[in-house]
């Protein structure tokens, strides 16, 4: 009897152990993020397309850029850098603009699309919590999209450098001096800094707001999300004749107004004269208030995912 119960207990332990082993092999968060990328292939196909279109434009304008380079003197380093880096900066800017648009569209569909096509009933039949799902969706504008944007920007710059290394010497311009003036590694570093601080952390409350509204709306989540901005902005204009609220949302979204750096009259925050101000940025209360608001929005979005039915 005793041995029998021992055997039973042991086999129960074994099966528990086996269950623990298999349970340890699941990674719900990782797979939730992967399935977002599977579903939204356009987040990198779109970046690739924009990079491709930009590259074609670069090729068409190559002669004009070369003419400008030839007429340049190296006496004014700031001016020289601006001309040399202009195509690189415009390319990076195009991809960053795409990043903003994609984040907006992704967030306003994330918790809406799965309710519209009823696939939420499939997702909810699996042992993945609403919190995991919402965090996985938030990780797209927070990590995945910026990483893709940065990666594509570097790839684009490399292709452009390769083309320049062929074209510049052929038109009698030294590629070595251009390379030296461009300071591409420093540029990439500043670009990463700019993306993270101005296009990830700064607009995050706006993205989280979109995620929340998409989890709530029965239709047209983007319009619902814009409604309070229009209403509050309109009332403010009417009563106080100011437009601080609309401006705040707008600058958050496009990443301007963040105290990330001081540019000395330059067009792009990636130049050698740009003075980065991370301490000022990270000690700005508006950053932390924004992130706290984002956290509240996400918490509500988790509840929305739990309560809302398919539309």
């Amino acid at each position, binding site marked *: 009897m005793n041995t029998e119960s021992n055997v039973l207990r042991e086999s129960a332990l074994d099966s528990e152990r086996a*269950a623990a082993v*298999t*349970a340890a*092999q*699941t*990674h*719900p968060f*990782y*797979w*939730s993020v*992967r*399935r977002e990328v*599977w*579903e939204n292939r356009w987040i990198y196909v779109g970046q690739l397309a924009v990079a491709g279109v930009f590259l074609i434009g670069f090729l068409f304008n190559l002669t004009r850029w070369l003419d400008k380079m030839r007429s340049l003197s190296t006496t004014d380093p700031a001016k020289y850098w601006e001309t040399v880096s202009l195509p690189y900066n415009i390319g990076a800017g195009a991809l960053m603009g795409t990043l903003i648009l994609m984040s907006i569209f992704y967030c306003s569909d994330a918790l809406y699309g*799965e309710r519209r*096509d*009823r*696939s*939420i*009933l*499939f997702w*909810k*039949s*699996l*042992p*993945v*919590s*609403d919190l995991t799902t919402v965090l996985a969706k938030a990780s797209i504008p927070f990590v995945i999209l910026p990483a893709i944007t940065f990666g594509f920007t570097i790839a684009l710059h490399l292709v452009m450098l390769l083309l320049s290394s062929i074209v510049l010497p052929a038109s009698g311009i030294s590629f070595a001096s251009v390379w030296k003036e461009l300071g591409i590694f420093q540029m990439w570093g500043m670009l990463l800094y700019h993306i993270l601080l101005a296009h990830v952390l700064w607009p995050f409350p706006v993205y989280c707001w979109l995620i929340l509204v998409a989890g709530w709306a029965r239709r047209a989540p983007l319009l619902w999300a814009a409604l309070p901005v229009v209403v509050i902005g309109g009332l403010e204009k009417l009563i106080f004749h100011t437009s601080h609220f609309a401006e705040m949302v707008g600058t958050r979204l496009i990443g301007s107004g963040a105290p990330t750096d001081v540019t000395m009259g330059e067009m792009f925050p990636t130049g050698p004269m740009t003075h980065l101000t991370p301490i000022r940025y990270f000690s700005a209360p508006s950053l932390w208030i924004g992130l706290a608001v984002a956290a509240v929005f996400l918490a509500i979005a988790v509840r929305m995912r739990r*309560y809302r*039915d398919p539309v």
Partner: protein
Amino acid sequence: MSVIEARGLRKAFGTTVAVDGIDLRVDEGHILGLIGPNGAGKTTALNAILGLTPYQGELKVLGRNPWAEREQLMRDVCFIADVAVLPRWMRVSQALEYLAGVHPRFDRSKAEGFLAKTSIAHERKVRELSKGMVVQLHLALVMAIDAKLLILDEPTLGLDILFRKQFYDSLLNDYFDGSRTIIVTTHQVEEVQHVLTDLMFINYGRIVLNCSMEEFEARYAEVMVKPEQLVAARALKPIYERQVFGRSILLFDQADRQKLGALGEVRTPSIADLFVAVMGNHAGAAQGAAR
């Protein structure tokens, strides 16, 4: 061991009461058919059991509170809610990969084995599959999960008869092993009659009938009665009477089988006929009460 235990389960949407205080107990190893007209509250009750909707009253599924513990519950519970909820963009191979990644009890090779019996290729997307194939795929995924409770809400809606038959055959042959529990709702009542171990009728959010299939067969009898014996037959208080080709078919509840035998051939009624009888009477009674 009871898999589901509900006491006073209630769910209202505004003033509409979808589930009106149900007491329910489903034991391990049973296949329960939940039958009811549209809007009877079947899906709402199942949604409460699956932790998809908040509810009032007491409800324990595998000892857990489904609304508070959906994530943990879904390790042991599977469901196919409606046809075609598989994400249309997903490839079959991605579905296998994803399930293996998130579900501790998913056996990928088992799912691949089930899929090998179908004509579904791994690189196909769900949107490229026919409706029947989507259901086959979903069933293959679900059957590869070693779950204790499987809930099927209209799993074969809109499928042709071949797919429907195949669906229940593979469910019985490849999945059900006596220790699992299955709850199925369907309008194709005849097709599940031989599959079920238990039967439950639900209407206006309440349980109208709840019995095992053995009880069902022992309790209910149907007799085709000749016109000259109709008066004698009616004296035995049938619960329902219908006409087929000019002959009367009477449905009896707990009537004396010997007396019935004298009236004509005694058969076990189909669930569909009992459904019509019980629901018809129930609706009549409800109307009578309203008057």
